């Protein structure tokens, strides 16, 4: 099908909040009939781990809504990041927002292609066995092979 629309995404971030946009947009585009490819590079590779340990932090992020005002130095205390992650996950669950794992599975069911940046894998000595099944490994040229034909390309 040559008239099928294509969406290419570069996912560069490895926090819980920023793991959402690539998987939400990828799965939705696939549901709309798009051919989708997501290229995960640098910290974005955390989103492909079998065992996701994604966290959120309010540090350096004054836009994050807080249940109560809190000085930045307090936010930096040990355990605060884990607490905020737990609170964020509970909030998402209560609002019916899917988990990252669920959206990732829905992407895979819809045949969204996941490409892991080989250079980053080597750079950080990551173990390819830590990634979920179905991940392909490639470089910038492989991304452009798809993105060059894409109708939409997003850098997240």
């Amino acid at each position, binding site marked *: 099908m040559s008239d099928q629309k294509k969406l290419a995404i570069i996912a560069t971030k490895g926090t819980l909040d920023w793991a959402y946009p690539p998987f939400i947009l990828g799965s939705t585009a696939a549901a709309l009939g798009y051919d989708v490819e997501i290229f995960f590079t640098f910290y974005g590779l955390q989103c492909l781990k079998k065992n996701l340990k994604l966290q959120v932090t309010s540090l350096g992020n004054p836009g994050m809504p807080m249940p109560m005002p809190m000085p930045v130095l307090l936010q930096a205390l040990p355990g605060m990041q884990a607490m905020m992650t737990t609170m964020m996950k509970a909030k998402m669950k209560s609002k*019916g927002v899917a988990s990252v794992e669920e959206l990732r599975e829905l992407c895979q069911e819809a045949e969204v292609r996941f490409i892991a940046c080989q250079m980053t894998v080597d750079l950080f000595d990551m173990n390819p066995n830590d990634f979920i099944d179905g991940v392909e490994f490639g470089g910038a040229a492989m991304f452009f092979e798809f993105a060059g034909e894409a109708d939409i390309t997003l850098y997240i």
Partner: protein
Amino acid sequence: MANFDQELDASGLNCPLPILRAKKAITSLSAGQVLRIVATDPGSVKDFEAFCKQTGNELLESGEEGGKFVFSIKKS
């Protein structure tokens, strides 16, 4: 009230889950059959409109019933 062949309860689910579940349900239908969806996400009103426009399936009904949003989609 239109007849339907299958019903999907997407109550309590938030974007993009109602669309993704609906897409899956529509895939299992044959052409001409109707899927009825019940949702609570206010964003789903515009989303189902956009979904149908882009996938070519027909949005037969989009309304509110007992505080929930109800849609009927006919598979093309």
